[in-house]
């Protein structure tokens, strides 16, 4: 696995987010402001434009550039959050091999960035509710000897469960928190996009 796999990931994720843009926006309509799909799509299309124009020697350069692109192009809550995730994920990979362990450490660094920016806790009904179980599942899989691919598959499955578990929650962070009790019964858009991105990783980072 080299830089190309990560290019594949970003392109694949861009495609999936594009296909799911209306769905993500619909989720965001229920408890937010109806822009999450457009935001993610805009950001990842900008990444694709970067990929079309430049080539990258290393995964860390690529991922940092992806993070900066998200920060510069998305805005809203998801821009800084996903932007920071990719920035820190890339930074953590600098000089590292692309072993399952190294990627695990980088994932942790990325998600810590999400936490540093967003200050979410588990159960706040945010994307962190998908990231947290995904990290745990990834770590467990690697501890059990899995390679990157299967570990990411486990992570994506856990993210999906975390995403589903956001449905009954009352939001305590982000725009959905304004709704109070009315936010319960709806799936968090950010946890949904996180799951899509991890599912894409499981398909491509092998």
């Amino acid at each position, binding site marked *: 696995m080299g830089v190309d796999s990560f290019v594949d990931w970003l392109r694949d994720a861009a495609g999936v987010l594009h296909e799911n843009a*209306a769905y993500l*926006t*619909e989720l965001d*309509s*229920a*408890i*937010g*402001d*109806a*822009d999450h*799909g*457009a*935001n993610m799509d*805009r950001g990842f299309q900008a990444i694709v434009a970067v990929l079309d124009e430049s080539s990258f020697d290393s995964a860390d350069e690529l991922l940092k550039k992806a993070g900066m692109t998200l*920060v*510069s*192009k*998305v*805005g*809203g*809550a*998801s*821009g*800084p*959050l996903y932007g920071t995730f990719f920035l820190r994920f890339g930074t953590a990979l600098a000089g590292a091999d692309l072993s399952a362990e190294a990627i695990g450490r980088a994932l942790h660094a990325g998600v810590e960035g999400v936490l540093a*920016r*967003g200050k979410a806790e588990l159960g706040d009904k945010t994307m962190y509710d998908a990231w947290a179980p995904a990290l745990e599942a990834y770590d467990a899989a690697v501890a059990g000897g899995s390679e990157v691919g299967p570990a990411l598959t486990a992570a994506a499955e856990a993210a999906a469960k975390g995403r589903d578990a956001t449905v009954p929650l*009352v939001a*305590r*962070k*982000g*725009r959905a*928190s*304004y*709704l*109070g009790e*009315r936010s319960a019964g709806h799936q968090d858009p950010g946890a949904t996009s996180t799951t899509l991105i991890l599912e894409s990783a499981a398909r491509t980072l092998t």
Partner: protein
Amino acid sequence: MKKLINDPGDVVSEALRGMAAAHPDRLRVDVENRIVYRKDAPRPGKVGLISGGGSGHEPMHGGFVGLGMLDAACAGEVFTSPVPDQMMAATKAVDAGAGVLHIVKNYTGDVMNFEMAAELAAADAGTEVLSVVTNDDVAVQDSLYTAGRRGVGVTVLLEKIVGAAAEEGQPLAQVADLARRVNDNGRSMGMALTSCTVPAAGKPTFDLADNEMEVGIGIHGEPGRQRLPLAPAREIAAMLVDPVVSDLPYQQGDSVIAFVNGMGGTPLIELYLMYNEVAQLLDRAGITVARSLVGNYITSLEMAGCSVTLLKVDDDLVRLWDAPVNTPGLRWGA
């Protein structure tokens, strides 16, 4: 979706082009970076005032750029906060050595993006940047269990008052203190008769039956705290004024700026009718209206509805409110 637009993806940049064409005397618009500048910015010796946020709230913020108000406004996509690059570019462009104040409405996205911009601007050019966050919406509990109160109507009043202070040469720290004082003395509450439609989404953010309204809404088409049966203006006014008054609380003998704001799709005749109700409620509570503002100033696309904002004022704040302002959205004395 019924809108006067071309491609939904071009709404923001085309509207900015329209602003540039309509106000060449007062504004300079960087359409590429989506920044509206006061034509004569930077003003030597003056603290630079910057705000920004998602588009769809016009005239806020671009319409509040000009003499006595903002030096620059960063426009995001519809309902999506702008990005740090915009804020940094604007910060650098309006800095005339006296520092820059960022006026940020309290939304997770806005706060995070402005935070990143301030960090980067400080590291980069050595510009002194202070930030003030508005959070006046009493519909939201300010607690550990929410992202805190939203910044809504007070933002408009704050940009005017703080703009006057900056215009008269007050230093950055003082301007920032004033901004916090204004925010602390202001409260708002809004309601919607209809949803709005985000152009890129193409359909209404929420559905409301003909006999329903949403109370406690923000300015992003988000549903409110409560869905209630439609009520007469008199009752709606009470639903907005009472929680505002009791929150600060505003008390008998207080002087306020009373602001009835339209959400974009409600015509002026209804806003004046609402103001009549609001003025009567304040009168009964012994609260004096020092100044008033009625109109569409912080909107939510074509949403029908309104918000009520009160700002407790002393002579100093009234003086700054009355000071000349010349922007596309607010203008007097100039």
